């Protein structure tokens, strides 16, 4: 085992310190070290988007990011989005639009939708589809996920 290093960062608005080994991913830091299990491991290879988090406001596949690279950054996970008005609106829209089936991809989708709507508050349907193309869902066929994001965007007015 490699020697651990202490890092400091902000997690969902809370200043946080953790001791991490160099090979640890940001996803493992969040799930295993800090115990927040809302962020999911779907593939571990950056292909499915289930592990999407916000790092300094931008969406990232946390399975591909080293925990050490979280030093000094601000991380927001699905657990932190509920406190954010846009995050809460998106979650509500996912519930109401029927965008959730097995739910395993949902946290990553919600975080990605937040990223999309922050950059493009009034996206077209095409932009929404492009915006979530890195997030796989096996249950819904994406229709109601797209609708939920449209609904959340509409609710911003």
């Amino acid at each position, binding site marked *: 085992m490699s020697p651990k290093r202490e890092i400091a960062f902000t997690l969902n608005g809370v200043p946080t310190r953790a001791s991490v080994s160099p090979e640890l991913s940001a996803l493992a830091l969040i*799930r295993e070290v800090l115990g927040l299990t809302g*962020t*999911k491991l779907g593939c571990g290879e950056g292909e499915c988007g*289930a592990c999407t988090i916000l790092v300094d406001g931008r969406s990232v596949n946390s399975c591909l990011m080293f925990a050490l690279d979280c030093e000094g950054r601000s991380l927001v996970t699905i657990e932190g989005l509920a406190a954010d008005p846009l995050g809460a609106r998106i979650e509500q829209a996912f519930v109401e*639009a029927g965008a959730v089936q097995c739910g395993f991809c949902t946290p990553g989708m919600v975080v990605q939708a937040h990223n999309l709507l922050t950059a493009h508050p009034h996206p077209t349907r*095409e932009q929404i589809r492009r915006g979530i193309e890195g997030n796989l869902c*096996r249950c819904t066929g994406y229709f109601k*996920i797209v609708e939920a994001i449209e609904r959340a965007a509409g609710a911003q007015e």
Partner: protein
Amino acid sequence: MQIIARETLIGKRIAKLDAPEKASGKTRYIHDLDLPGQLYGKILRSGRVHAKILRIDTSKAKALPGVHAVITAADVPWQRPIGVARDHLPLKTDRVRSPRDEIAAVAAQSEEIAQAALRLIEVEYEDLPVLTDPLDALAPDAPLIHPEPHGADGGTEHLKPGAPVAYSGRPDNLAMTFDYEQGDVARGEADSDLVVEDTFRLHYVTHCCMGVSGIIAEFDSSGNLTMYSNTQVPFLHKREFAEILGMDPARIRIIQPPIGGGFGSKLDIYPFEPICVFLARATGRPVKLVFSREEEFLASPTRQPVILKLRSGCRRDGTLTFRAVETIHDNGAYTSWGATTPFVMMQTVSSLYRVPHCSYHTKAVYTNNPYAGSFRGYGNLQATFAVESHMDRMADALGIDPLEFRLKNAQDPGEVTPQGMQFKTCGLKECLKSAAELGDYQAKRRAYAALQAEPGRFKRGVGLASMLHVGGGAKIYPSDGCGTILKMDDFGAVTLITGASEIGQGSETVLAQLVCEELGLPLSAVRVVNNDTEITPWDVGVHASRTTFIGGNSAIGAARKARAKILDAAAKQTGLPAQALDLRAGQIVEERSGNPLLSLAKLIRSLHFSDKAELVMTTHYYEPPSHHQDRQFKGDVSAAYAWASQVVEVEVDTETGAVRLLKVSGAHDVGRVLNRLGIEGQIEGGIVMGQGYALTEELIVEQGRIRNPAFRDYKLVTAPEIPEIAVRFVETLDGEGPQGAKGVGEAPAICIAAATANAIENATGVRILALPFTPEKVYRALREER
């Protein structure tokens, strides 16, 4: 006083009860659960396609600090074979038959240590001749996959009667056969003006559940086993695990955490599950075993690959005369549910359309390839692909519009098919007409056909296909039932304890809705408990699109008993006859006027805190009025049948071979819409799963090895690729269905590939007989044709 009108939740758009937890990341899947003192399990797989195991040395792995147990078959001489044919030992003894085969397993204090320990296990193999082409499997000189009885230590203990290990081996590679006949195919052929024959090739795809397979197993100090499992069939598993482990079933408890996708993949017991139990037993600690994504691709089941020869005939006027099917099912190295897909395939062959003479023959043959399980649609995608391709071929050969051709041969309500299926309700003709209208099928088909020979890189086409599937359960086991326990608390709230499992499809919401309908309660007054065999009553499991139908009827039965008890008590208190009363919005009301008479909660408390002191608690077991098939595969196996037609519109890039799905227009006989939001979600998701099967997904298997075990190379449909869709519900109000509903879970995925094949033909004039329609395959087909 406020008048309370009767309100209904049926057909409304109801958000799933579990959605808020899931959308906020609070739901705890198996991957998110950890038990105190838990160890981590890992499995060593052979990596060899076919080989003898000469030697296994685990001593270095056992010596690694943090390793609590390393086990091989020698450590569990009492292990018993699993799977549909009981031909599969969890830990292999003397021979491996595919690269995913389990050789040894480790339990360690961390995943990293378990992984490191696997690398320290030494195994010596002697490679054996490999069999990977199912067409070669029955040749006299083919390598045999299960030549010897296999079991404990390669010894003879298992040959004694009643001994734990039971697989006797086979002198050939024949895993299973299915032979069905109706009428006289030779006579049908003699009666035909047109006969067509093709061989269709259906490929490997896999479920790709977003949550990978996993289990936690734990023994208590009295030897009782608890498994946290993603199974779709907890009660069948309880019994089967007892058999495999040599345990009393009463000592096995299965708890199902929320599941990250099922789609049929969790209908069988797979080696990792008993292996995890072996590790828990060996260490006396809870053991958690979760796959990596790569392992999920390599070692979870696939959809059944099929080579299907179809011969079909009809008369000049378009009347079908006969259909004859022969298939080779590549069974892979072991037998799971994939081998049994002929049960469903022959229904489509014999009964989707009226056809007097029919034969269906399957040989499922052992190879060293991956093995298939059950997968949403259960053989029906494969059978429908062939049958509906031929419907278009025959219509075109006769010069009849394919819609008219199908309508001429379509089933009607009241039909009893030669296979014994009774179509009490049947919306096929309405589905055909509705889908054709929604997709503007007839006009577009003529227009696109006329453009085939015109210059131009992009060609469009429309294709139509229909499907028949069980919609009222499927009587495969001794019982196809589901139990419900319903209890009401002192405040008028309901706990619905059901055997029916939720796998993301929305069953708990629809069951709660059906209960609310009987008891006049808002959804917020119902809690559903559905995931613990120690608490819930028996259910056969989530399969065959049965949960809403069977679980729904069971929940309604329990709710009606509670309603009767409440209204009887209310009648005594109000002096009105029970028939004059109704339950609405948590109140007892006068049925005709809607005048509230007393609150439900108060009534229940008055029952509870009275001299007679009783609670409102009811139970109900629902068994559908369906029948087992006889040995000739005849019988009315489902209490209702679901129908659908879909029109697919595609654009083919004739320079690259790329096919784009533009629009899917579907009409579904669902009996009745219960939760509109939920049923739309099932249909939309099914359509896109069908799209992946038709166009993008393929598990590439070369010489027994899976070449693309990652999402990078196994192409799931992503959001930008989804088509426009239009769906119409045909509500035939089935007399046996809960509020008239039928099952819908599998239906939407079934026709897409067949309809896409027909659409590509309409666009290009080229018929492709093998899936998936990748750019390369389409490109080659277009070039060969010209």
